[in-house]
């Protein structure tokens, strides 16, 4: 009986540890991709800003308009 109860205890430990490690891997994936997305968004914003500034007519600048 003790041997069997020991196996149940091992089973619970194995499941607990495995679930923790598996979720850790999933969390890492999320973190990596959150970082990558952020980088992509900021890079896209920079490109947009550069495109906007270069396509703006010269006389539309506030200083020159006045």
């Amino acid at each position: 009986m003790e041997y069997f109860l020991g196996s149940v205890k091992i089973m619970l430990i194995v499941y607990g540890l495995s679930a923790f490690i598996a979720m850790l891997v999933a969390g890492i994936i999320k973190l990596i991709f959150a970082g990558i997305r952020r980088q992509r968004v900021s890079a896209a914003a920079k490109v947009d800003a550069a495109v906007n500034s270069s396509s703006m007519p010269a006389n539309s600048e506030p200083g020159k308009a006045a």
Partner: protein
Amino acid sequence: MQEINFLYIFQGIATMVASDPIIVFARIVLILLGIAFVYLGAKGTLEPLIMIPMGVGMSSVNAAVLYLSETTMGTIFLDPMASEPSQLMDVLQINFLQPIYTFTFSNGLIACLVFMGIGVITDIGYMLISPFRSMFIALCAELGTLLTFPIAVAMGLTYKEAASIAMVGGADGPMVLYTSLILAKDIFVPITIVAYLYLSLTYAGYPYLIRLMVPKHLRGIKMDPKQIPSFTKAEKMTFAVISCTLLCLLLPVAAPLFMSFFLGIIIRESDVKPFVEFISGPVLYGSTFFLGLLLGVLCEAATILNPKVILLLFLGITALLISGIGGIIGGYIVYWTSGRSYNPVIGIAGVSCVPTTAKVAQKEARDANKFAMILPWAMGANICGVITSAIIAAVYVTLLR
């Protein structure tokens, strides 16, 4: 003229005549079973890549028993129990499959090579669609791997033997081989054979389980393809490198398996074509071929007549059945928590028989609704299943070794 003893010439028959009736019966049954495996493999009922070489090996080894000396019988295929260096040196020069067995099978190398091949043919991008959900489903689909452990102990197996047979619930052949080689070397042959036998049956058995547990209108739920983000090769490689390093750091005992799997993924994503072609072709198919052949050759009557085999057959099917049920329950939990937009059939793909269970899930969904496309999500759960199986194997081995 000297009298010719025909039984001395036809030693396969002579050893049958001289053997114990139980051994003779087992040899005949295994020869017929081997032939049946070849037939069913060629027909497509069982997995042909494993079953054809396994069937040929099984029927040949049981037919080709001869007198090795005046009193001992055996074969000149291989001796799985040779371990003393001098004895090993002798058999390496006599048994024709001994070099492959000693240098690739008994040290787990062949399992790692198969794993590397699986890595090369796996698109990790599927797993990245919804990592938490996929991992949750994969954990649910490991229910058999866990519950079979105490069941096996209650039926009289030791912890190490119980953990080895429980790994069948992960439905991952190389993993079962790796675990049983480390934990239960005495019975790793029947455990691995039981595992591969049942794994090839999942394709035939799991569709019935799905139809039993999931009504048709739920099987036909369509998944939204807009949920699938695109990932660059660099992103996939980043994930593979970090996960591999982390898992090796946490569970060094299964580092060969983790490294092989993620190396395969990295090679695929790095687009080094000669390596991709080499590993997905000659390495994967060569390893699978020799794995099947060696498993067949290991099915010698004397080895298989272990009283634990019947028990292992029962525990193996129990583990796979509970894992399948667990996977579908996981699919249902995600279905309810996602606002009933997730197809619960994907749950079966958490059982990590790559890519069989994912294909089974897709086929069942399409049979219910011809527009239902669930394969990307099923593959995600499938790949997570491989990772969770490797984690569970590593935890079992670390705790029980």
